[in-house]
């Protein structure tokens, strides 16, 4: 299937906040109440449409456990977008946001779009973090904010699609050098120009002479 752009996302946040469930809801439109602990990183993909352009999302769902932190850090650099997830029923997951952000700022490319997600919004009776607090944190750190429920699918589409829209806007504004794939963006066919995976100044498929 051809696409105009390909965006790489990562989903980060404490263990048990519902990262894998968000991904499953987005890619498979189903909810799995009991989910195995993610080991390392899992992969998911889906095609979306923004302003009539096909955009392919490749999403890496990371393990929230501390012991996998060093491995999950490897995924920051190459991602165009990150969903930073906390659990509105567990205050400590909200309190850890600052450390996650620091990690992201340290290892990710500076133009990475981060979406703050307060998940499990269906569990209103157990809410421990108010919507206002979430909004406030997002504002302070320049993030986009949404409350979602992977269970009811509330705002799940929006979370992924709004992030993509934000990245798309940045491309339109020329923030990215889209020819550099390490920003987590790839230009496909149908973005207007020809496939731009070839970097300027480099001949496509040129065979350099072998020196060994």
């Amino acid at each position, binding site marked *: 299937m051809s696409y105009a752009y390909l965006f790489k996302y990562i989903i980060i946040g404490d263990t048990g906040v519902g990262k894998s469930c968000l991904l499953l809801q987005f890619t498979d439109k189903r909810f799995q109440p009991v989910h195995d602990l993610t080991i390392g990183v*899992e992969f998911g993909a889906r095609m979306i449409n923004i302003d009539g352009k096909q955009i392919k999302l490749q999403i890496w769902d990371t393990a929230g456990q501390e012991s996998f932190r060093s491995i999950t850090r*490897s995924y920051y650099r190459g991602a165009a977008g990150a969903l930073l997830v906390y659990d509105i029923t567990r205050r400590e997951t909200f309190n850890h946001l600052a450390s996650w952000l620091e990690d992201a700022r340290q290892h990710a490319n500076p133009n990475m779009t981060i979406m703050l997600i307060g998940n499990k919004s269906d569990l209103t009776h157990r809410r421990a973090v108010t919507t206002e607090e979430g909004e406030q944190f997002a504002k302070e750190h320049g993030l986009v904010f949404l409350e979602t429920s992977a269970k009811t699918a509330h705002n799940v589409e929006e979370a992924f699609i709004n992030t993509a829209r934000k990245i798309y806007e940045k491309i339109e504004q020329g923030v990215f050098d889209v020819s550099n794939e390490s920003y987590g963006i790839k230009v496909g066919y149908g973005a207007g120009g020809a496939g731009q995976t070839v970097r300027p100044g480099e001949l496509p498929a040129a065979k350099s002479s072998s020196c060994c």
Partner: protein
Amino acid sequence: MNLLGKVAKEFGEYVAGEDQLGVRSEDAAVERLLQRVSDGILPDDRREALAQLRDLLTGNPQAQVALGNAGLPVLCTVLCDERGDLEMVRGALECLVLAVHPGASSGTSRAGRKPQPGAINAELLVRVPGALALVVGLLQGATGSDFYVAYHTVQLLTALGAGNMPRLQEAVLAAPMGVARLMDLLGSDHEVLRNEALLLLVGLTRASADVQKIAAFEGAFERVLSIAREEGGADGGIVVQDCLELLNNLLRTNPGNQLMFRETGHVSGLLALLQVAPPRSSRRRGVARQAAANLLAALETVHLLLDPPKGPQAASAAEEKQREENRVSNQAALLRGSALDALLALALLSSSVPSPAVRTQALQCVQKLLVAMPQAQMALMEASLSLREGGSVPALQALLRPALQARNAGERAAAAAVLQAFCRGNSEGQSMLVATVLPVGEEGAPGGDHSTFGSELVRALAGPDPAAAAWAAVVLRGVLDGNSAGKERVLRIPLELPAGMQSAPSLLLPLCVSCLSSALQTGRSGYSACVLLRLLITWVGGCPVAATQLIEISDALPLLLDTLTGRFKNTDPVVRGLAAVLLGTCALPNAGSDGDSDGAGDRAAGHVYDDGENPLDRDFTVWLPAFEARLRSLVSASGVAMSAAAAKMPAAVRPVVQHGVVTGLQREIAELRARNSALEQSSAASNGAEAAVAQPSLYGESGALAVRAAEAEVRAGRAEAEAASLREELDGLQERYRDAATELDAARSQADEARVTAARLEADLKGLSSAYNNLEAHAFALEKRVGEHGAAPAGDAAPGVSEAEAARRETAAAEAAGAQAEEGLADLLALTRHMRLT
């Protein structure tokens, strides 16, 4: 050193082995240089010392040893403290690379005896605290962008990984950008650097799911495939093979990466690598060999997608389900990418690479593509290959040729397995193939334009080549398996148009029987007899018409009974067992053909024909016990009315059949047991072999071996279970047999008694008949005398005998005769009564 001095030194070394003087001088030199490197004040002096140290280490194992424990930390300190001084960093790196260099100078025999100094140094360096992280860190920042630093760092890491890959993987994962930087190097404009990074990544991605995933995240699929393409695809050099090796590492036992591979549409890129340029007459042999290696690596990728090897842990049911879903998705993606055409071209067009290994692998991939995938079976049915000499041939017919004629046994088995996979659960395809069995008269000359799948098959079956005939039987069995309409139809198709109206047409079933007969009588090959018997079992099973026709063939029953009773020399026990099963199937054609039991066996189909020479595949051994149980009930119900076919068996034959079934099965079980233990051994052996060949140059094979070993293990397990259940069955059967034997003894003694009685009766009868003869003779004599008497008064009244006298004598004679006759009659009656009583 002048020439003379040098010669003297070398001679001294030769005489004294490890020359103390020489070693000491190396030690001292290395020590002095290290001193200068670590304590020097002038940077130039330190650089100079590093350069000298490098020269000293080049190709000098003794210097490598001398550097050892003390030197490595010194060099690490330089790397750590002088990061700003690129020249120093380069120098120290070069020294380290030389220190861990495997040292090609020393022979392999010496290497076997004691560890190489390079390997020792690598181990020592890995143990220097923080050294690995330090070296990995060099790839980042200013040092990483320097070509020489990056080049030597990658070289050093590759050497360190050769000794202790898990530690290196750990270190690379701990560095946040470790894998990412290596992936950048894979895109380097410097080909040397790119190739070194490629080799390092091949090592790093082996057996580390984390490294595999990060590499995939960093765009490894795309990069690897594009490098392979740039390097000339399948016709390219060894770099293409390295690329595919990396690709295989990324996909092996990694469903997540397989999903990503599919989702990002790289399947077509992979399939493009299966295409080879048409051969040029000037092609050198070496190039062709590399192309074959490239193709084998690409075919392994297809294999990994179609038959994902299991992970190290035993999978739960849910995991197994996911695995299967993943496999089916891969299968569908490959099929969409027209993998079938690419694979068939590789397997069947002789213009491609002339390598049986490639063709066999391609055939195995085709078979795996067909497993439980009706769309793939349909596509194969419609596929055709255009021949170079013009025209085209249906792919199925083209597949039949290697199945019957390929010189390589593996290739033959693989081609036959493709045809079987095509037929499995595909009655439409089977019927289509059956329809191609045509009377010979309808086609042109053999091999001509009008030859069909069926006619080629029949020709091979009747042909002079026993191996081809055996494989034809295997294929025909697949075509008929589970398709009763096809079985009946083939029964009727004449193979040759009858010469005249009065001569009977020649049919396929009698042909098979005569093939079997000649296979048995010549004792040519147990295998031929086995496959023919299995063909007949499948044919007769579920097809009573075939059972009837088989029994009606005049030679068939005697042939089978002779087989059972061991009339032929050197009959394989398996052959006898199968003959017993065939007889049983004739008696009980509706006990289910062995094709019916394999509903769950579709996955197993992939493993069935790995050892093509095994006539008892898994499905059969699964089916047999059930069939045997049915047969047993039939045997125990002897005397009760049987199926029509069984009733046709002469009554006297029945005990023989029973006996044959029992002994045949007994032997078969023994055989199965033997095979089982052999399988266990081979699986153990291949496990061992797997460990032994885990060398970088042989990783492809070790993968395949691992797969084969796992399969062998599974099969061994199954065979064991089967043997156990068969053993139980056997115990039951033996009991039955003992019962039957006692019954038989009883019957025999009865028969003996009857014979005695009969003899007595015969004697009586003889007495009776002689008595009757006497009587008759007497009556005749009397009649004669009566006649004489009657004539005397008429013709000779003169001799003075009165008529009254004559009449009186006559009456007396008649009375006497009447009494005598009455007596004889009473005797006769008594005897008759006696006879009737007995």
